[in-house]
């Protein structure tokens, strides 16, 4: 069915709520209102479609029932597309897709929030315990590679967490068993268990200086575990590696944990700086501004970090 223009009289209906979605529509001329009940308040809502705007897309994509009734307010012309034709149209126009992606992702974010707000408290398992229990599952089932992977991640995010002693012990055991047994990928060529790579602080630093941040992250986490004297430094450097790897949320989490445990950390300013920069990375400008401002009051006067923070704050304006 090629796209076709359909004329609608005022007060007619393009589709009813509950009708199965089969086509996508564009309002060419006139006025259409999408009427639905707000799922949270139960209030009747009216969204007006702009000329040139699509409607009915979500339902058509999944062949779901429409959530809304499309009411024609004045005599209008609507172009009706089959899903295939609509896809064809989109695939040559990434600007429209990007716009729709933004609209959909906003809707999705909102509905996610609404769902979560209704979940009972015990549904929201705490993430630390959750991550620990993933490692624990693989450990119990002797899948040592995965147990080590999961526990090593635990150490990155919760270097002073509730299960840290146990996790450290289990990493050691799992690492020694790596590739030995119990893994369900036995058809893959078995790699000989790599010798347990013990890094020294110097090695970790030189890996970091070479710019190999994924490896440096591993090395610093390992050093933090094996050398209590170097722990504070290594943990901090691991956080910087996370930042260099552009892992914004991870960096925030990592440094927040460090500061929580050590509220008088002597590199507090630097930690706040990296938290601020990470918020910038995940586009939370308000928090970025807050953390960078705070870091500026703590960083040494001539450090590159303080200059960078000042520059960013200036660009953001109104700091």
């Amino acid at each position: 069915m090629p796209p076709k223009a359909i004329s609608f009289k005022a007060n007619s209906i393009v589709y009813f709520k509950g009708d199965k979605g089969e086509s996508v529509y564009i309002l060419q001329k006139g006025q259409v209102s999408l009427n639905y009940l707000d799922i949270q308040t139960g209030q009747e809502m009216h969204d007006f479609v702009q000329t040139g705007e699509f409607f009915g897309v979500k339902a058509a994509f999944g062949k779901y029932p429409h959530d809304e009734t499309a009411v024609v307010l004045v005599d209008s012309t609507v172009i009706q597309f089959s899903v295939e034709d609509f896809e064809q149209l989109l695939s040559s126009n990434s600007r429209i897709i990007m716009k729709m992606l933004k609209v959909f992702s906003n809707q999705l974010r909102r509905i996610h929030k609404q769902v979560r707000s209704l979940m009972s408290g015990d549904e929201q398992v705490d993430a630390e315990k959750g991550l620990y229990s993933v490692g624990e599952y693989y450990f119990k089932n002797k899948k040592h590679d995965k147990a080590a992977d999961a526990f090593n991640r635990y150490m990155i995010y919760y270097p002073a967490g509730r299960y840290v002693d146990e996790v450290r012990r289990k990493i050691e055991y799992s690492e020694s068993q790596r590739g030995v047994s119990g893994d369900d990928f036995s058809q893959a060529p078995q790699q000989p268990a790599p010798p347990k790579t013990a890094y020294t602080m110097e090695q970790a630093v030189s890996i970091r200086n070479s710019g190999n941040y994924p490896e440096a992250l591993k090395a610093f986490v390992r050093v933090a575990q094996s050398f209590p004297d170097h722990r504070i430094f290594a943990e901090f450097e691991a956080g910087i590696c996370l930042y260099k790897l552009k892992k914004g949320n991870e960096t925030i989490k990592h440094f927040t944990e460090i500061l929580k445990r050590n509220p008088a950390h002597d590199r507090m300013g630097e930690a706040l700086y990296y938290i601020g920069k990470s918020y910038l990375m995940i586009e939370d400008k308000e928090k970025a501004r807050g953390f960078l401002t705070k870091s500026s009051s703590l960083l040494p006067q001539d450090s590159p970090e303080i200059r960078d923070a000042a520059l960013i704050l200036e660009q953001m304006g109104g700091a």
Partner: protein
Amino acid sequence: MALDLSVFNRFAVTFKAGSVIFCEYEPGDSFYLIQSGKVKIVKIFGDIEKTIDILQPGEFFGEMALLEEAPRSATIIAVEETKLLEFNRENFEILMQGNPQIALKLLKLFSKRIYDQKRRFQILTLEDVLARVADVFLMLSEGQVLDEDEIEDGRREFYTSIDDIAHWAGMSPDECRKTLDQFVSQRRVEVFENKIVVKNINDFKRFVSSSRNKQEKADS
């Protein structure tokens, strides 16, 4: 996949078979596109590791992290040696703009997620626990593919664990079990080792809609 993604090669990362790409509960903000190999999505429920899906080249995962700062909701494991492209928020847009096919796929996925989440929300707004559990079965039945005889007959079988049902209904497994027991004693539901049978899904439909109507009246 006939896409030329070579410009994105600097985002390539390789994982060995069996290695964990990310862990459930881990914070994260990367989005991944599979170039070669296979990954499986797993979740651990108590003592069981459940494989939720297996993804192939051209498919992607981790997209929720681009939307919100929630921990990862599942663990992703490489099934064989797997090459991925890893994107963060900044370069995600560049990828989407240059690759409408991928963007379209994501758009469809979002449509489905919005629909699913709205459906979940409807369940959670029910105050009566019996109605909430009944509505979970309705939701599950909406996703079932049935032949005509089965549609005629209102009996429906669900190979879903009580924990899962409790999760959808937003209650504890214990509370869910008690609620199911009530249905069992009314002979509307049978609970077996590996499945739950709803004897008449149409009866559940009427029950849920009358419960919803009552609630709306009381609210207004």
